[in-house]
């Protein structure tokens, strides 16, 4: 059967390429046609320049129908010259910039060309050239703008030749294929009818003009009026750079060969159309690149049929074919007798239609062989038929499947090569008698091998032959190996027996290959090439060679390579993952160089600083002395109103309302007073801190530590996101500019913080300008320039800066010494340049007058007070309930005589009271949310407006309710809580502590999992505007601990985002993906935790649901019950002192009670941990089992009682490690811990003198696929762990190693001793 494309007579026009360009120039004169670097040409300019070139050529005697050589480097000039030749009425004959001059001469001779159009820079190479050579620059000077121009003559018609392209020829001479103006212009219209390139498109131009796929880029763009972006030479072959380049230049259409696209490390946002061609398209590419938002096409066609003859739109899950014929084209599969074969039968593919070329230049015999009369013609355009030489069959859907080559043409790296052409060139070399070239697999890869027999005497050296052939042939046609033979095996017919030749043993030696290899440069390349030399003896090692594709590597060889490299301590950190990711030898060497450990020979690890014991003890004593006042200050905030209420109640005639008012007043004063106290105490204790390095546990360290602890006493969350935050930070010593928005922030040395005007800082940002490393406290400045942005969850260390209008992305880190230059956006951990900030397109900052600012400050002040009061009110119903029960039945409780008995009695009473408190808090939140606050809508809103205030109050609800509702997170009740706040949460979804949630903007599907500390759809603030976008998480997706989900993210179903990883752009995500790190990288496969009963993971039974609900209900209620019971016991014990008017004694007693409560809370958690869990050991447990509930309950008790009331105050003291030992951790001597983030305590091992900085932690468990997996973490001696770093279970950090800020050490990783690592996931840290 003949497959015919749609019949479109409207594409069969009498037109030429100049007609097309001129029509677009007339239609869109000012539209940008070409962009190259800083230069651009409009269609009118391109047309005018081409006219001048044409005029000059005509002046030089060029006439219609002549074939002109075209040899210029990439750039605007090349395309101007190409169009100029066409406008002169001639055809161009293009050559790559690196084509040997000898081959250019051969082709120009063959085509009878009158000359070569080039540029001045290439003239020195053409001094010995036999025919005329013209430089473009000279032509333009010869035909200045404004002068009358000569036009092409009347002989120029649609049947004139448009271009000639030379392909490899079997006789040793390249063969030229000439295509007419009519054929090519028809092709442009025919293909674009399917592709649909539009004037609004920006099209990437990367192909050489010597490759006819360049027509799809260049001339289809001219036809459509699109803008063509010309890639610089260094970018064209760099798949790692291209995604970034394409995004930066807003490319919407990409034409590429599949090999190039396959090497792209990531998706490209904004790319709406990809057209592949030139070689077979692997199925994997379709799965990766065909998305609902993007069209992926596969084109097929030999040069002889004018670029392409068929096209398939590829879809995921569908087999790759070359599709159906283009409009007016036809395809048929024939046998050796030109009989049509039915679908399913394999035969030779033939092409018919107006694209079929006239034939080969000067080769009537070959033309007659390949271009034959078409016996199945139904119109004049089908008169002839072209034999492609490709094997194919038509499938059941009428698509054509291409199955390889019929003849001995071969494809090497996508290039079609006639072996005979190489043989002919080789046979002409001096000293070579006969020669044969075959393709054979050497070391697992297909390569060209040349075998030759010496004419007489000694055979010529391979190196000389290689050099000579390289000067005459394109690189892909130069054989990889030259083998001198005594005789070539022949068939009885006398022809070379190629089969026998492929089996001929080769005498290739390493020395020979060395001569053909690139010369390694630097330690990394030397080590790599040496290792490869062992694995691939005799093979040439080229930087551009692909380990798998070119060298023939496979998994075992990759493993052997890693093993050989790791034998060198400098490259101990290389992994097999690096080999799979990088593939090319050059890229692998680059990674090796980055990972090269700067450990001098003989030195295993840097010195581990052992802090003096005496200093440590003295500091510890001083810190211990400050603990009681610190703890009781914190306690006072809730104990004082508690006491006040009971002071004013209990007697006949007491007014409950007066007691409530008094307690509220005391509560507000305690909160307000804590801010004033923190400010005064900071200046008294620390004064103004200076940048520098101070001994750990020394006097300066103690002062800094105390100021840092005091700063945590006030409820800072009340100020987050309000203008009051700047006032408070200024009072602590920071320099803060005007009109800043600062979210929840940790700042470790406020004196060293300088924030400019108009700065926006997101939620949960850590400004860690105090850190401990190698026995020293390091204080450093942080400078943030005017109008800069620091997105949520970012970390900045001291000695870092962001320039004016600079931006640091979400979950990104800026380590000491790093600076974001003005106007740049840096992202990632470690952060790197991402793009220029779009300053020009920013909306103007909303103006705020001084009066307005003052009113806003008042609003925030009273708003914060209101929120504090509203969320304190629910304690009173619980008080009333206990008092009522107490009066009725438990009057006999005598706390003075038996305090313990009294405590347990009160605890019993407090359980229902606590339940009332939790319920009342939930109701207060719901009431506030639904009665006071409007539903938020997506959009951009000024930060000085109603919508922002409303969002701020919404955040305050979540923050303020945390004190009571902390236990609710990570329970079965958490989804209900979020639904109550306005979020849409599907069935079976588990949510732990999500941060930055804007409930109205959040939708989570069914059976998803949100782990601890996920920044989930936080709003973004920039330039005085808040941007709210809906965030959607699909079904069965997983967000790991500390993940960052930017607002506006749309996660498909079944997506896994790893721990401390950023969600990628929406266009890059597909269902089933696993993304890890920042910038996020996709993992090819993830661990599958199978083998557990679904009833214990996703589909629990009703009894299990009820059991878990009960356990978690108790977990929510019990911590508050303990607080209330302690409060009552305290009141009972201290009230007699107050009643006696001994107010000083009362205050002291309350302080003592507060401290005892704090310490008691910790000991209580220790007791519960050992009673309930015993010792944690590595194990896996499904989520719906009692062990997991108990473990989570213990963690929750630790975090809600022990940490805030006691353990938090021990951060940065030598007392914390021993306390951790009580819980089961194994901690060494002199350990510095500025973190309490420990869960499965027994699985944590910390070596002597290790330093764990702020908010970092060993993460000894993960929930994946609803399985809790517990494993051990080993942190060696003298290790420094940077702020917010996470070490996942089964990982080891070697002695003396350093981890930078926001580092993620993956499961099972082994960080070598003394090495420095940073980033997510961890990579060697190179300064």
């Amino acid at each position, binding site marked *: 059967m003949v497959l015919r494309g749609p019949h479109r007579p409207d594409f069969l026009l009498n037109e030429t390429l100049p007609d097309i360009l001129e029509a677009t120039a007339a239609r869109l004169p000012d539209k940008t046609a070409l962009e190259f670097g800083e230069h651009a040409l409009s269609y009118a300019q391109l047309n005018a320049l081409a006219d001048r070139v044409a005029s000059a050529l005509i002046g030089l005697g060029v006439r219609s129908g002549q074939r002109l050589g075209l040899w210029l480097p990439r750039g605007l000039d090349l395309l101007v010259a190409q169009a100029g030749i066409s406008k002169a009425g001639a055809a161009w004959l293009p050559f790559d910039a690196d084509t040997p001059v000898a081959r250019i001469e051969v082709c120009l001779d063959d085509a009878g060309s009158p000359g070569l159009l080039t540029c001045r820079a290439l003239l020195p190479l053409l001094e010995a050239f036999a025919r005329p050579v013209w430089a473009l620059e000279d032509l333009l000077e010869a035909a200045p703008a404004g002068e009358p121009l000569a036009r092409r003559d009347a002989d120029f018609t649609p049947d004139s030749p448009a271009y000639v392209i030379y392909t490899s020829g079997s006789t040793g001479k390249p063969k030229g294929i000439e295509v007419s103006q009519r054929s090519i212009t028809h092709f442009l219209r025919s293909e674009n009818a399917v592709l649909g390139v539009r004037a609004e498109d920006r099209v990437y131009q990367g192909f050489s003009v010597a490759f006819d796929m360049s027509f799809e880029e260049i001339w289809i763009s001219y036809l459509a009026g699109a803008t063509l972006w010309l890639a610089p030479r260094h970018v064209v072959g760099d798949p790692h750079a291209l995604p970034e380049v394409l995004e930066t230049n807003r490319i919407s259409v990409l034409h590429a060969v599949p090999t190039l696209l396959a090497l792209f490390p990531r998706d490209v946002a904004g790319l709406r159309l990809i057209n592949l061609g030139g070689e077979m398209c*692997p*199925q*994997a590419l379709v*799965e*990766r690149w065909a998305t609902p938002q993007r069209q992926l096409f596969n084109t097929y066609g030999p040069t002889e049929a004018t670029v392409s003859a068929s096209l398939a739109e590829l879809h995921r*899950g*569908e*087999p*790759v074919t070359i599709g159906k014929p283009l409009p007016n084209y036809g395809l048929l599969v024939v046998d050796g007798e030109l009989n049509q074969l039915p679908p*399913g039968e394999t035969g030779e593919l033939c092409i018919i239609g107006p694209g079929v070329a006239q034939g080969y230049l000067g080769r009537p015999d070959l033309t007659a062989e390949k271009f034959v009369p078409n016996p199945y013609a139904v119109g004049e355009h089908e008169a002839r038929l072209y034999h492609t030489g490709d094997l194919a*069959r038509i*499938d*059941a859907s009428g698509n054509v499947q291409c199955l*390889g080559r019929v003849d001995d043409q071969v494809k090497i790296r996508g290039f079609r090569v006639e072996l005979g052409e190489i043989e002919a060139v080789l046979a002409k070399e001096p000293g070579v008698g006969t020669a044969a070239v075959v*393709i*054979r*697999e050497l070391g*697992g*890869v*297909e390569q060209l091998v040349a075998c030759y027999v010496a004419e007489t005497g000694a055979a010529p050296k391979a190196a000389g032959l290689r050099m000579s052939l390289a000067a005459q042939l394109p690189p892909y046609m130069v054989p990889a190996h030259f083998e001198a033979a005594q005789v070539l095996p022949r068939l009885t017919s006398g022809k070379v027996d190629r089969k026998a030749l*492929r*089996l001929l043993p080769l005498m290739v030696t390493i020395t020979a290959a060395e001569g053909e290899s690139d010369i390694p440069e630097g330690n990394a390349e030397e080590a790599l090439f040496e290792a490869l030399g*062992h694995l691939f003896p005799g093979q040439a090692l080229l930087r551009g060679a692909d380990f798998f594709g070119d060298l*023939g590597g496979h*998994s*075992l060889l*990759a*493993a*052997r390579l*890693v*093993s*050989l490299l*790791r*034998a060198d301590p400098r490259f101990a950190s290389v*992994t*097999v*993952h690096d080999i*799979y990711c990088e593939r090319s030898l050059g890229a692998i060497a680059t990674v090796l160089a980055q990972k090269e450990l700067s450990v001098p020979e003989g030195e295993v690890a840097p010195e581990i600083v052992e802090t003096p014991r005496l200093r440590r003890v003295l500091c510890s004593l001083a810190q211990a002395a400050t603990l009681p006042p610190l703890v009781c200050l914190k306690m006072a905030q809730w104990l004082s109103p508690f006491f006040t209420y009971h002071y004013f109640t209990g007697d006949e005639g007491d007014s409950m309302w007066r007691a409530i008012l008094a307690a509220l007043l005391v509560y507000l004063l305690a909160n307000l007073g804590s801010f004033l106290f923190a400010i005064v105490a900071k200046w008294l204790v620390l004064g103004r801190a200076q940048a520098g390095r101070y001994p750990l546990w020394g006097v300066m360290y103690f002062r800094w530590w105390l100021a840092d602890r005091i700063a945590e006493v006030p409820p800072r969350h009340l100020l987050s996101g309000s203008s009051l935050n700047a006032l408070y930070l200024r009072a602590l010593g920071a320099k803060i500019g005007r009109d800043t928005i600062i979210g929840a922030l940790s700042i470790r040395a406020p004196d060293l913080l300088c924030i400019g005007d108009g700065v926006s800082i997101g939620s949960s940002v850590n400004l860690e300008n105090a850190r401990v490393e190698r026995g020293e406290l390091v204080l450093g400045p942080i400078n943030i320039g005017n109008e800069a942005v620091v997105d949520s969850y970012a970390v900045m260390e001291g000695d870092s800066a962001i320039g004016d209008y600079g931006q640091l992305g979400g979950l990104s880190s800026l380590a000491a010494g790093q600076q974001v230059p003005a106007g740049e956006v840096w992202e990632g951990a470690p952060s790197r340049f991402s793009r220029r900030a779009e300053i020009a397109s920013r909306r103007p900052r909303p103006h705020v007058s001084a009066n307005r600012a003052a009113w806003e400050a008042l609003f925030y002040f009273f708003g914060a007070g209101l929120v504090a009061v509203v969320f304190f009110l629910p304690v009173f119903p619980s008080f009333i309930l206990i008092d009522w029960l107490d009066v009725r039945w438990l009057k006999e409780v005598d706390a003075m005589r038996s305090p313990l008995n009294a405590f347990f009695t009160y605890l019993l009473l407090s359980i229902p009271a606590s339940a009332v408190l939790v319920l009342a808090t939930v109701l207060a939140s719901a009431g506030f949310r639904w009665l006071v606050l409007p539903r938020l809508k997506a959009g951009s809103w000024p930060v000085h407006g109603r919508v922002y205030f409303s969002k701020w109050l919404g955040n305050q609800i979540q923050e303020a309710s945390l004190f009571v509702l902390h236990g609710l997170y990570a329970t079965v009740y958490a989804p209900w809580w979020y639904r109550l706040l306005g979020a849409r949460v599907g069935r079976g979804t588990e949510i732990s502590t999500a941060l930055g949630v804007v409930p109205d903007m959040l939708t989570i599907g069914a059976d998803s999992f949100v782990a601890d500390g996920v920044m989930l759809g936080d709003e973004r603030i920039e330039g005085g505007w808040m941007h709210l976008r809906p965030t959607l998480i699909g079904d069965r997706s997983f967000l790991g601990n500390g993940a960052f989900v930017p607002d506006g993210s749309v996660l498909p179903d079944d997506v896994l985002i790893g721990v401390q990883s950023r969600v990628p752009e929406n266009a890059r995500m597909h269902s089933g993906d696993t993304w890890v790190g920042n910038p996020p990288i996709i*993992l*090819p*496969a993830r*661990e*599958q935790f*199978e*083998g557990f009963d679904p009833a214990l993971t996703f589909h629990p039974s009703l009894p299990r649901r009820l059991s878990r609900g009960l356990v978690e209900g108790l977990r929510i209620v019990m911590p508050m019950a303990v607080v209330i019971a302690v409060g009552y016991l305290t009141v009972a014990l201290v009230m007699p002192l107050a009643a006696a008017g001994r107010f000083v004694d009362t205050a002291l007693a309350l302080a003592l009670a507060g401290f005892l409560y704090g310490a008691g809370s910790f000991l209580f958690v220790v007791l519960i941990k050992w009673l309930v869990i015993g010792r944690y050991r*590595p194990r*896996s447990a499904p989520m719906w089992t009692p062990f997991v509930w108990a473990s989570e309950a213990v963690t929750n008790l630790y975090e809600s009682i022990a940490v805030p009331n006691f353990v938090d105050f021990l951060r940065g003291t030598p007392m914390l490690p021993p306390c951790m030992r009580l819980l089961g951790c194994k901690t060494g001597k002199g350990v510095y811990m500025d973190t309490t983030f420990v869960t499965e305590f027994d699985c944590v091992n910390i070596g002597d003198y290790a330093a764990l900085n702020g908010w970092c932690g060993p993460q000894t468990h993960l929930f994946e696929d609803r399985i809790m997996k517990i*494993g051990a973490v080993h942190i060696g001696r003298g290790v420094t762990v940077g702020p917010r770093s996470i070490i996942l*279970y*089964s990982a080891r950090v070697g002695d003396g190693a350093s981890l930078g800020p926001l580092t993620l050490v993956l*499961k*099972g*990783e*082994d960080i070598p001793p003394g090495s420095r690592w940073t980033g997510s996931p961890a990579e060697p840290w190179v300064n």
Partner: protein
Amino acid sequence: MGELSPVILLPSPPPSTALRQRWGEGSLLRAFHDRGLALLLLPLPAESLRAAARRLARQVLREVIGGLLALPAEAVPLIEGPQGPVLEGAARDIRISLSYAGGWALIGLAEGRALGVDLVRIERLPEVEALARLYLPSASRHAVLDAPAGMRDARFAQGWAEMEARSKCLGLPLAEISAERELILERCELMACGQVEGYRIAVAV
């Protein structure tokens, strides 16, 4: 180790019609129906190119599955997935795993369960100990390190084939061994199977 799985040696080159008649009604069909699992060992023409070997294996795969499903080979819905050929539509329950080494291609077919097969040529590797330490689970690692010199290469080939078969079965990329990876690899079961001289075959389901 699970039940014994037979290795069916295919003729070379495989004549398609004969293959369908011979194996469609014969031992392959029985093995597949009885155990839901079949292994086919395909001898490759000497010095065949990698691409040619792949094509040949896929051609055989089409013929064999065509025999199982009573379909013409060209109608077998075989497509290229990211990790090798897969079947789609109603036939997607038949899982495929392929491995090539030396002069052989190993084809594994399983019904309704994940499958990984691997074929490794026994050869002398100078860095065998380091490789065992870096990549093999503890049992295989000890088997290699404790082996007498003459058996070390065979033990390594066995360990490597088992590790690769398990990885393929679980869809895991090759990676350095860790306690975590070791636990995960154990999630699939190894089947005992026949061997070819000079090679080691492993099958994991």
